[in-house]
């Protein structure tokens, strides 16, 4: 099997899910400069709701696709509600308060949502139902499953849809106006509360779909899945330039690739036996042995390293333009 191609396929799949989650962060940040810490939990709730609904519907013998669609629909509805309530009760009262205040309520909401989910769905790792049979195709020595193809297709469609919605409708004008100056936007007849609520709801809907995709890709769902996924997606948003919608898409895909390629090759690169001058000196290297410093179990570190590097060297991200107000 071709490792490079395989890792690229895996990276693209995971990366496009990160991109969808990152969109939720970036849209909210773009409009009210708030890191919506609870977004990862919204994604988790999406996965959990879909899990429950699909499991409930399976005995009725409906067509598999219909079951998945209904499950995802319910997930979207619940997540929209959660996203809206979080905005309404935890963030709106603090609009205009010092920056740290809404960030702290966001952390609080994240803990509350996570543990409410634990109460409902237990602390066990749930096996995500695989009701659509997955087939594997081979391209140039690398395997790609139907699930991966579906994820890639859905993510591309979602990004295109969002781009249309945000760039081709009056909503875009309202969002940009609110982002630039809420007070003046209000004077110009923009209902800023509505615009902000719509932003949260859109982000939550995308998050719900991402949750379902993520669950079906890894076949697992757990109440803790949101926090690490959220962090990675946030890193992706920062990588692309936070507040910038195409940036989040690019950042997500890039982060997925970095992670997959990093995890695939870090073992080879840190195998000290590869380096002649070292291998002669070490017992472990005799008879083709290995002395691997860092293996693929460091996969989760890459996102954070990318995040830190971006913030240090280019805080505005790859596609971001406003540097001054962020650094």
């Amino acid at each position, binding site marked *: 099997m071709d490792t490079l191609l395989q890792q690229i396929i895996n990276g693209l799949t995971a990366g496009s899910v990160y991109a969808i989650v990152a969109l939720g962060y970036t849209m909210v940040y773009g409009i009210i400069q708030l890191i919506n810490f609870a977004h990862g939990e919204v994604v988790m709730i999406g996965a959990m709701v879909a899990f429950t609904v699909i499991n409930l519907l399976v005995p009725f013998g409906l067509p598999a696709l219909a079951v998945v669609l209904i499950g995802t629909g319910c997930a979207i509805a619940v997540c929209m509600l959660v996203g809206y309530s979080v905005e309404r009760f935890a963030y709106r009262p603090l609009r205009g*308060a010092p*920056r740290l205040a809404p*960030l702290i*309520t966001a952390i609080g909401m994240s803990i509350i949502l996570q543990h409410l989910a634990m109460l409902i769905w237990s602390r066990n790792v749930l096996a995500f139902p695989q009701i659509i049979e997955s087939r594997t195709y081979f391209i140039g020595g690398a395997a790609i499953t139907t699930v991966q193809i579906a994820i890639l297709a859905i993510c591309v469609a979602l990004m295109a849809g969002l781009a249309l919605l945000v760039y081709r409708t009056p909503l875009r004008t309202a969002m940009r106006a609110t982002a630039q100056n809420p007070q003046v936007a209000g004077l110009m007849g923009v209902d800023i509360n509505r615009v902000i609520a719509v932003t949260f709801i859109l982000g939550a809907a995308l998050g719900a779909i991402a949750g379902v995709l993520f669950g079906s890709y890894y076949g697992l769902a757990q109440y803790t899945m949101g926090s690490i996924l959220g962090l990675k997606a946030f890193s992706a948003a920062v990588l692309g330039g936070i507040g910038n919608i195409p940036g989040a898409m690019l950042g997500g895909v890039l982060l997925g690739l970095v992670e997959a390629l990093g995890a695939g090759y870090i073992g080879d690169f840190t195998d000290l036996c590869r380096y002649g001058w070292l291998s002669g000196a070490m017992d472990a290297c005799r008879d083709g042995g290995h002395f691997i410093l860092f293996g693929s179990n*460091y996969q989760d570190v890459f996102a954070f390293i990318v995040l830190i590097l971006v913030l240090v060297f280019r805080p505005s991200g790859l596609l971001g333009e406003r540097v001054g107000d962020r650094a």
Partner: protein
Amino acid sequence: MQRLIDVRGRPWLVWVGLALVGLALALLPFALAQVGTTWVRITNYALLYVLLALGLNIVVGFAGLLDLGYIAFYAVGAYVYALLASPHFGLHLPFWIILPIGAAIAALFGVLLGAPTLKLRGDYLAIVTLGFGEIIRIFLNNLSRPVNITNGPQGISRIDPFSLDGFSFGTYETFLGVQFSAPIKYYYLLVLVALVVIAISVRLQDSRIGRAWEAIREDEIAARSMGINTRNMKLLAFAMGASFGGVAGGMFSAIQGFISPESFILVESIMVVSMVVLGGMGNIAGVVLGALLLSFVPEILRWTVEPAQRALFGRLIVEPEVIRMLLFGLALVLIMLFRPAGLVPSAVRRRELAERSAVPGGRAP
């Protein structure tokens, strides 16, 4: 401010008060031991959280840098102690050598974290520190291969208790006819350390450094134009906060006798942040109160809610651990919504948090 008792003209009353508090602190473990030794242990952990909260308060409360990876420094301190005083490497250095080493290494990590994040604004800093905390935990989990340094997820066990010239904190002893168990000995040590840390915090707050931190927190650009070296001051805040965490970690290691990366997860960082926020960022008494409240209330709930549920429903419906976490979350949200300066707000913070900008959702100028 209205005082409970008017001490003007009667300065000796202050000393009487202090003596009473001291006596209460000295007798507390024996009272608790009557209920059960577990409660002495719970008190010890609460005191460790007090140390952590006070350390984090330097970073968050004084300098205004929200650090969501603070537990990493606790982990560094704990692992330094565990590696230098356990059969894992066969090293058994005395604690009075290791604790300063642990504090120094934690401070070094604090600077390592602080240096690349100096230019970042509050919310970005929060995320980067969070990522840093996770990186440390992932390394602790995986540094067991190819060379076994941290023993991976199994953690390190049989860590030496504190001992000084034949006097061990880990054993049972009878002194003057009174029985001192190991937790009670540690209790006294922890109270002593906590008092020292409180004293340091109080002195720091009113010092030139403390005022510089406050200035940076209020307005960094103004602070810099007043001649404050903001870079060094921020690094100093990170380093000092981290070193407090390192000392607390070393004590945790010795008291517990066993550590694993499980003890240093993200939730722990958030718990410490909750304590600081609940009590009132920047207010030392508030932070101590916050740490004690968020340590004891969940434990009291654990001992009451669990039996109550079993009696009412015949089974456990809501695990105490969940209640504990929900409490932390609620504390964060409700405090920010209704009492943003904390239960015991510091005067400056109160003023600062009460001022809302005129523009709803407006960007800070």
